[in-house]
């Protein structure tokens, strides 16, 4: 599903549109059990998984100065994962 989403939504200009892709929605629909897999995917290759992570956790670990900076956003979420026992 992750690969399908990467391939089919890659040309979309806004995360708003990417996150509406059926594969992305199905991943969110798997529930909190998918959080470790998303974090692993984020570590392997940073991509726009932040909508899903926010939807699944309600958390916002990205500091204001790093907003929009993909690698920093990924680092903030990976740190959050470590602090919450996901890795």
């Amino acid at each position: 599903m992750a690969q399908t989403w990467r391939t089919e939504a890659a040309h979309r200009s806004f995360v708003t549109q990417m996150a509406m892709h059926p594969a992305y929605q199905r991943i969110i629909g798997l529930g909190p059990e998918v959080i470790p897999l998303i974090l692993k995917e984020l570590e392997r290759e940073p991509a726009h998984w932040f909508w899903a992570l926010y939807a699944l956790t309600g958390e916002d670990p990205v500091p204001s100065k790093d907003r929009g900076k993909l690698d920093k956003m990924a680092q903030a979420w990976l740190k959050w994962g470590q602090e919450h026992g996901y890795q």
Partner: protein
Amino acid sequence: MAINSKTRLEALFPQLSSSSYQIKSPATPQYNCIAWAAEEDDRWWEPVPVPGYYWPRRIPREVTLASLTMLFQRLGYRPGADETLEAGCEKIAIYADFSGAPTHVARQLANGKWTSKIGTLEDIEHDLEGLTLSDYGTVAQIMKRSA
């Protein structure tokens, strides 16, 4: 540039194959077309109301033509321009789908061509029509500012 990139882009944007365009960068998810139109390439500008993304303050966080128009007005652009190359002017073009929802932003270059960051894919230099008749729809608005 890998042949796969051209094949993929032309599948997504069939009009490209019959127009003149060039791939100018590797694919990257680090920035999007709005950032690129605003001449940034180190962060993703996103109106989505989900924490973590950059969006200028006091611009509505919604994917609407009004919101993007307000954003580029903040950057000094004014609506009501056309796609011609004008000395002393910089231009951006906002694409929208059939419902009027914005889908993409391109920026005009000094040679009259347009530069676009395609989602998480490459930057390309192209004609405005090259991205039409696709998921990006058509050009809904062109704005300009003094260079």
